[in-house]
């Protein structure tokens, strides 16, 4: 996904993504990322948790208006419910 993000950014469109793994993101270096600490298959956090999904999207988009270095990864943590994450 980071490669696609870089190509869109190079075309002149500002981008921001969710990172699910810091090691991969630091290698591929997309322009801007939010690392929320969620697992595979859960970039917006939890199913049927619209409040959390909205907060993650809001926070990610807010990075677009920050003065960040190219390739920045912003780490944030989010409270989660006790629901079981299904594989």
């Amino acid at each position, binding site marked *: *996904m980071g*490669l*696609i*993000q*870089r*190509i*869109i*950014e*190079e*075309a*002149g*469109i*500002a*981008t*921001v*993504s*969710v*990172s*699910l*793994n810091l*090691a*991969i993101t630091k*290698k*591929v*270096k*997309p*322009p*801007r990322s939010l690392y929320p600490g969620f*697992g*595979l*298959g*859960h*970039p*917006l*956090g*939890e*199913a*049927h948790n*619209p409040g959390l*999904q*909205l907060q*993650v*999207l*809001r926070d*990610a*988009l*807010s990075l*677009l*208006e920050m003065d*960040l270095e*190219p*390739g920045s990864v912003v780490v944030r943590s989010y409270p989660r419910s006790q629901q079981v*994450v*299904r*594989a």
Partner: protein
Amino acid sequence: MTTFKKLKDQTLAKVYAKIPSLLDLYAQRAGLVVNDAAPLTPLPRPLRTCRVGLVTTAGLHLHQQEPFDMTDKNGDPSYREIPANIGIGELTITHHYFPKADALADLNLVLPMEPLRRLAGEGTIGSIAPRFFSFMGHILGEHLKTLIGTTAPNVAAALEADGVDAVFLTPA
């Protein structure tokens, strides 16, 4: 696709999900494209006036669209256009390399269409792009060249044609 391959792929996805440190090992050993620098395009105007699009690599597509090819071990570098005004229930997932039960139960988990509508409604963003784009992740080998040289640039051009100012991307 053989049932065996599907079972193997989904089992591996569950193992990676249960043991996140395995992804760090994957990052060290996989043939990832490594970059020393990143491009950066400033937002052209305040976010509250921007048109925002979504791109995912979760393998989403409309039920009636051709599914992604899961038989090729190097993945499928094609993409699907998703009209932004559809109901999220019109989508499904063809991608076996991540645990997808939660995403299938609520596709906003990987393509936040409804949260984006909420942000447009409250004025945090200016408007929503007319179409979103979906790839599948895990593109390797020759298909990486197609992704980098053809399909991703085609999506970038489509976003530009749609007047999109900013894009939010999700892996899975």
